[in-house]
């Protein structure tokens, strides 16, 4: 194990690890942004059309709930393989960083929708009623009440979503997506370079810790209920 502190190890694997880290960061970053672009509006719609929402609509709510649940119930690896042709159609390839982003987004978006729904449901119904009583439109209530009031909770949810996507990228790595997961599998497992396995695991642990810490700090930092 001590070889991970040697210049030889880093001379041989340093670039690979750096590239792996870069690929993971790109996959997680782009997937998270795209998944939020889909998941956030979905979560908002789930809240608005819910039984106690300001735009109750049972049909829309049920259909959305269904779609989200289907997305949530498929294991990522199955989804990734099942979507292979769709992915190639959409972005030209189903391997590498680009190929991984499509299933990552499709898998994370429903998860994010539920996270957003939960965060928004924590906003006091009385505050929503007050905004309605002032003549706020649905759009204004979403934009100026729901989202800002739920922001600390949404930020916390953000860290969970990102860490989940990070875990997915490691799975994606097993079928050629690149990134740290790919390194762990290729070197740590197939070539039995235990030091590589150790380093990728350590890196992943550090990344998760850093993300969690940053998001926790931001969440408490912006929460005005706590002072």
């Amino acid at each position, binding site marked *: 194990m001590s070889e991970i502190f040697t210049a030889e190890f880093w001379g041989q694997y340093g670039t690979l690890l750096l590239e792996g880290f870069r690929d993971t960061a790109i996959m997680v970053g782009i997937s998270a942004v795209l998944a939020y672009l889909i998941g956030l509006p979905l979560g908002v719609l789930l809240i608005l059309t819910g039984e106690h929402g300001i735009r109750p609509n049972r049909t829309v709510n049920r259909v959305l709930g269904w779609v989200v649940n289907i997305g949530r119930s498929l294991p990522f690896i199955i989804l990734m393989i099942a979507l292979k042709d769709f992915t190639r159609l959409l972005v030209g390839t189903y391997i590498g960083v680009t190929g991984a982003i499509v299933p990552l987004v499709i898998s994370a978006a429903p998860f994010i929708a539920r996270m957003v729904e939960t965060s928004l449901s924590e906003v*006091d119904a*009385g505050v929503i009623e007050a*905004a309605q*009583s002032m*003549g706020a439109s649905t759009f204004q209530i979403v934009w100026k009440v729901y989202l*800002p009031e739920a922001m*600390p909770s949404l930020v916390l949810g953000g860290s969970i979503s990102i860490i989940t996507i990070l875990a997915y990228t490691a799975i994606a790595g097993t079928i050629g997506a690149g990134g740290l997961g790919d390194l762990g599998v290729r070197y740590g497992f197939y070539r039995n370079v235990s030091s590589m396995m150790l380093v990728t695991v350590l890196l992943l642990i550090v990344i998760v810790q850093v993300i969690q810490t940053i998001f926790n700090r931001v969440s408490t930092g912006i929460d005005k209920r706590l*002072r």
Partner: protein
Amino acid sequence: MPVSDSIIQVRDLTKTFGQGDASVRALRHINLDIKQGEIYGIIGLSGAGKSTLVRCLNLLERPTSGSVVVDGKEMTALSEKELRLARRSITMIFQSFNLLMQRTCLHNVCFPMVISGVKKDAAKKRAMELLDMVGLAEKANAYPAQLSGGQKQRVAIARALATDPKVLLCDEATSALDPTTTNSILSLLKDLNQTLGVTVVVITHQMSVIEEICSKVAILDNGQVVEEGLVTDIFAHPTTDAARRLVYPGGDIPELLVDSSKVIRVAFNGGTAYHPLIASLAIDCGVKVNILGADTRNIDGKAFGTMLLGLPEDENEAAKALSYIRAQHNITVEEVEYHV
């Protein structure tokens, strides 16, 4: 269109929740006329339908049938957009304040102006004036979590006034506050009613609130208005059971121990506790009175609530007792009709 000096006119309003066997008839055939500039009370026990009624006035709740005219507009006929506009002149405050927790007091007060398209700078300027009016200018940059209940309600009042409403609806606005704070909020509402001319509708389950600021009152019982009129009249001649339950403190009306020709209702608004009053009445005037019922609370050595007293039959003694009680601070007295 019929000419009317009522700013709020409710006709045959009915609201039923749910359907079939599970349905709840929350409001039945309600008729109300609330005049411009009035402070109008709606009182009833929990579950009587007060919140539903007040929410039907700004159409937060859509009536099942009937008509609600506010400021000349038939509210039930408005389109969604027209309704949002109308709501700017019928604003509301709540028992739980319902402030935006992630915004400063200033931004809370700006909120209704910003959503109605007022420029940011103009909104801020007006918001500062309003915060000043409710006595909280120095808290402009504080967040709601840093305020006491009374201060939160003041911010909520400033916010409710931001769009220059004609009507201010208050749903149990003081029910979460202690008696001293309640009184200060009530006198603020009274002031605003007088200086701005805003019509105030006060929903409460507390008689003391009605007594403190309302000129007229409707008693709501089981979804129906069972009595309506001047507060003084209703207090003096409650004719229905529901009204008597509210007017005569303590609920049950006890048997008279001695013959009393005259019964008075004494309201304590934060003066000395009531036991010393009865005792000193006996000592100072030599007059014994019957306590027929009492619903008073002692808070920090001050009495709040109401008490029903039977005065002696002897007219001189009765008059003596009456004038003695009238001379006390923070006590109001009314003669009432007493049905045994």
